[in-house]
């Protein structure tokens, strides 16, 4: 299949940047989206041009590194799929595909389609952990956990921190990410000790970094490649109210 690409090119964080048109020809429908960019980059390198810079790592949909805004959606138009797991069969022959970086004040563009998502790391560093006294490995069943809570905590922990929620949200809010990280601890006994401190500090850091405010549009849940539920946001709000009230 033949495709027309409109790709955001920006040489550096301070460069103004612009969209550049590329034609990619004779692409197999079974090619992954990132492989299609690889093919384009091979051609650019052969011509002596600068290849398109983009983030990727595992290419198995579990690391959270890939981050393209494709035809109006983070990670492209297919639901519950990361960019690396998206395949060209989801597009039409001759289609024009617009590819942009995540857009949010706390995610500045480093180059082309790569944005700096260190803001998420800073939120985790603030309080997204549990303090444990190290010692011998505890017995697997020493701490009883309700089955339902274990499942919910695991669902929240499925968040790969890719930033699609921020990219999708019209307010560039990070509430889905932060609430998933708050929830995965809040639901488990090990996380309860620092729960109040954690939720207050992570929310404060999120605000300080310049993420927007959640207006409950639920775009984040619809676009999340790991289908993180907005019930995590409600849980974080409950936790926050509880922490503030003492």
């Amino acid at each position, binding site marked *: 299949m033949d495709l027309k690409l409109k790709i955001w090119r920006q040489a550096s964080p301070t460069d103004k940047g612009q969209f550049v048109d590329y034609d990619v020809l004779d692409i197999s429908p079974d090619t992954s989206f990132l492989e299609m960019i690889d093919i384009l980059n091979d051609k650019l390198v052969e011509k002596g041009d600068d290849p398109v810079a983009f983030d990727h790592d595992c290419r198995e949909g579990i690391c959270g590194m890939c981050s393209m805004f494709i035809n109006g959606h983070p990670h492209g138009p297919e639901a519950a799929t990361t960019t690396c797991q998206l395949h060209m069969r989801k597009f039409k022959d001759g289609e024009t595909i617009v590819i942009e970086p995540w857009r949010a004040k706390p995610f500045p563009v480093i180059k082309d389609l790569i944005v700096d998502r260190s803001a998420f790391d800073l939120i985790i560093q603030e309080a997204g952990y549990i303090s444990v006294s190290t010692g011998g490995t505890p017995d697997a069943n020493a701490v009883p956990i309700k089955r339902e809570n274990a499942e919910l905590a695991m669902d929240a922990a499925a968040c790969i921190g890719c930033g699609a929620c921020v990219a999708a949200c019209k*307010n560039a809010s990070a509430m889905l990410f932060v609430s998933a990280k708050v929830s995965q601890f809040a639901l488990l006994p090990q996380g309860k000790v620092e729960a109040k401190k954690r939720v207050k500090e992570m929310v404060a850091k999120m605000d300080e970094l310049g993420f927007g405010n959640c207006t409950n549009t639920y775009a984040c849940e619809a676009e999340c490649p790991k289908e993180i539920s907005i019930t995590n*946001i409600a849980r974080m709000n409950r936790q926050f109210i509880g922490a503030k009230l003492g």
Partner: protein
Amino acid sequence: MSNKPYYSSVTKKIIMSLMGLFLVTFLVVHLTLNSFLLFSNNLFNAGAHFMGTNAFIQVFQWVLFAGFAIHIFYGIVLQIQNWMSRPKGYKKRASMEQSAFSRYMIYTGLLIFIFLIIHLGNFFFVKMGWAGNGIPLTSNGEENMAQLVRSLFQHGGYVTFYVIMFLLMGFHLDHAFQSAFQTLGLNHKTYWGFIKGLSRVYAIVVTLGFVIIPLFVYFKIV
């Protein structure tokens, strides 16, 4: 600009949602009183007289104004912060919002605010003697709010404006009601469907309720 807020984003949203639910309750009371006009002028005037003279209501109306002011203030503050959080937008962005009217809350909100000012000018300011020629009197010398309302609803342009504004209010409420529950953390799979349904029903019933009164008066059904 430093983004370190006095109140956190979540606190501001909780204040917004509590004030919003307060206003949601107020609309039910207001609609109930308005609906008296469908039954009789005397009943409507009695309701207006009660609201205009009851000591509790007289004090509480200032709490209500404060509720509006806080809701509007934080709505604008949150929106400005939201605009600032994405200095450069997308070239192509799909409509991803799952709550359809959530995209337009600031715009429907600002139009409702304009309507509120005009609405106060038409009724509350007249009642307070700050505008207009006073409230017409009945043959018994009592205030005839029903006549004031009916005279306004004789104008097709005013009725059209009123109906459009309440449709916008309906769009605002459709998102607002369920959104307040989500913000307050009251979202659980066992009852979330009910809250979303209740939100839609509330928005439709309140909008229709407010809209049929001027239409019935204009078309001389009541």
